[in-house]
C-alpha cells in the first residue's frame, strides 16, 4: 500500500461522501449540518465525532493483525517484559527508560525546529547535552531539575501540526497501532535519527542493543495498558480509540489548538443499525 494513501486517499474518500446525493445547492452533508445546527444539535458533537472516530477502512485486516500481534505478545514479548519487571526494581527501570528517552532527544530537536519552535528546540538541545554528560548518558534527568522539562516531538506530530490528516488507521504486527500519517512519520523518525546516523544503526552492536532495550522498555512501560485491555469489551476498538485520542492530543498540544469534546447531556445523533434478525 502506498504510504501516501492517508494524505491523498482520505481526502478523496471524504470528498466523495460529501458529494453523494448533491442537489442544486450545497452538498447534502452541509444541508444536514445546517439543519442540525438549526435544530439545536451542538456542532461540537459532530466535530468531536469526526476527531475521535478513526478512519478504519481496513478494519477486517487490522482486526486479524491485532489478534495475531496479541498472540505474539502473549508468547514472546509479555514474558520477556514481565521477567524484566520481576528482576529489576521500579527505580532501575526508570533510569533505563531515561536513557532510551535521551537517545531520542536529537530527533525531538529536529521536529521542534520543523514545527517552528526554536526556543523549545534549544531547550531540548540543552537537555540532551546536560543529561548525556552530567546525567551520565541520560541515566539521570538532571535537566528536569534545571527547569528544562521533557518535550515530546516526532515526525507524525510535525505532519499533524502542518495540517496533514491522520489517514487510515492501521494495526501493523510488531509496530502496533498506527495511522498513515504516523507510519510515514515513524519511518522518517528511524531514517533521520541522528544517534543512529552518527553513533550506529542496526548494523552495529550498539544499534542492536539499543533496539532490544527500547522494545523491552516500551513493552514494560505500556504493561498497564495491556492489562487494561483485558477489561475491554472490544479490545481492538479500545486500542484504536486510545491511540487515536493520544495522537490527536499530541498534535493538538503542539499546534496549540482547543479540544472539542462531546455533549454529555445528549447521545450522538446517528441512528443505530437495524436490530438483529431472530
Amino acid at each position: 500500500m502506498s504510504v501516501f494513501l492517508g494524505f491523498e486517499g482520505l481526502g478523496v474518500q471524504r470528498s466523495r461522501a460529501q458529494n453523494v446525493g448533491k442537489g442544486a445547492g450545497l452538498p447534502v452533508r452541509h444541508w444536514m449540518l445546517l439543519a442540525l445546527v438549526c435544530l439545536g444539535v451542538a456542532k461540537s458533537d459532530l466535530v468531536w465525532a469526526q476527531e475521535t472516530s478513526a478512519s478504519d477502512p481496513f478494519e477486517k485486516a487490522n482486526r486479524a493483525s491485532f489478534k495475531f500481534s496479541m498472540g505474539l505478545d502473549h508468547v514472546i514479548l509479555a514474558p520477556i517484559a514481565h521477567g524484566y519487571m520481576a528482576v529489576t526494581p521500579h527505580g532501575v527501570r526508570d533510569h533505563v527508560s531515561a536513557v532510551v528517552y535521551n537517545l531520542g532527544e536529537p530527533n525531538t530537536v529536529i521536529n521542534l525546529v520543523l514545527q517552528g519552535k526554536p526556543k523549545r528546540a534549544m531547550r531540548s538541545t540543552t537537555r540532551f547535552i546536560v543529561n548525556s554528560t552530567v546525567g551520565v548518558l541520560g541515566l539521570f534527568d538532571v535537566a528536569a531539575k534545571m527547569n528544562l522539562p521533557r518535550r515530546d516531538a516526532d515526525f507524525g506530530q510535525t505532519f499533524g501540526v502542518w495540517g496533514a490528516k491522520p489517514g487510515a488507521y492501521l494495526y501493523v504486527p510488531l509496530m502496533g497501532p498506527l495511522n498513515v500519517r504516523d507510519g510515514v512519520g515513524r519511518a522518517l523518525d528511524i531514517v533521520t535519527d541522528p544517534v543512529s546516523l552518527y553513533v550506529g544503526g542496526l548494523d552495529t552492536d550498539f544499534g542492536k542493543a539499543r533496539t532490544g532495550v527500547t522494545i523491552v522498555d516500551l513493552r514494560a512501560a505500556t504493561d498497564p495498558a495491556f492489562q487494561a485491555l483485558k477489561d475491554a469489551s472490544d479490545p481492538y476498538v479500545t486500542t484504536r480509540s486510545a491511540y487515536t485520542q493520544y495522537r490527536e492530543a499530541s498534535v493538538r498540544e503542539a499546534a496549540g489548538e482547543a479540544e472539542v469534546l462531546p455533549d454529555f447531556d445528549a447521545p450522538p445523533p446517528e441512528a443505530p443499525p437495524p436490530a438483529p434478525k431472530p
Partner: protein
Amino acid sequence: MTGKTMQSTFSTRRPTRRGANAALLAFFGAAAMAVPALAQSARDPGAEAFVQTKAERVIAVLADKKQSEAQKKQVFRQAVDELADVPKITNFVLGKYARTITPDQRARFTPVFRAYAENVYQSRIDDYRGEQLKVTGSVVRKPGDVIVNTTISGGQITQPLPVSWRVLGNGQTWKVVDVQFKGIWLAITQQQDFVSTIDNAGGNIDVLINQLQKGGSGSSGRR
C-alpha cells in the same frame, strides 16, 4: 475531492444561490466555532476546589493501607458517588444506543455497568498507587463545563502524573463526567468500546450486558 468533481459540483449551481448558501454556512459555522474559542479562557476556582477535595479523597481511599479490601470497596463507592455523575456517565457510554435502550435493558445495564466500572477504575487507580493530588489549573469550556488539570504524585509515581477531570455543574454543585490521562478520555474510550460491541452484535444491547456480567472481553477478564 478531485478538481473535476469539484468543478462539476459548482457548475450546476446558480451563482446567487451559491453565494447565499456559502454566507449562511459561514455564519452558522463561524458562530458555532466562536463559542468555544471565546469561552475557553478563565479558570474556575469552585470546580478546582471540588476536584481537589473529592478526587483526592478517592485516591486517599485506595492508598489507605489500614483498611481491608472490603472496607476500601465500600468507601471507594461512596467517594465515587460524591465525585462523579454516575447516571450521566452510564447514559453517555451507551452512545447512540442511549436513545433506543428499553427501560428493562436500562434497569439491567445500570448496576452491571456500575460494578464493572468500579472494579476497572479501582484496579486502574490502584496500579499507580498515587498519594497526593494537586490542582494545577482549569479551563472553562463554557459556563458549567470545566476541565480541571491536576497532577498525581507520591507512592510509586516517580514523576508527577498529569490527569485532567471534566466537571459539569451550575457553579454551586459539581460532578466529574470524564477523566483524561495521557490525552485519553476514559468515558469516551468506554463509549467507543461499548458501541462497537453492540454494533457487532447487530444492535443487541443484551450482548454487552451479558459480556460485562462475565467480565470484560470474556476469558481474559481479570476480576
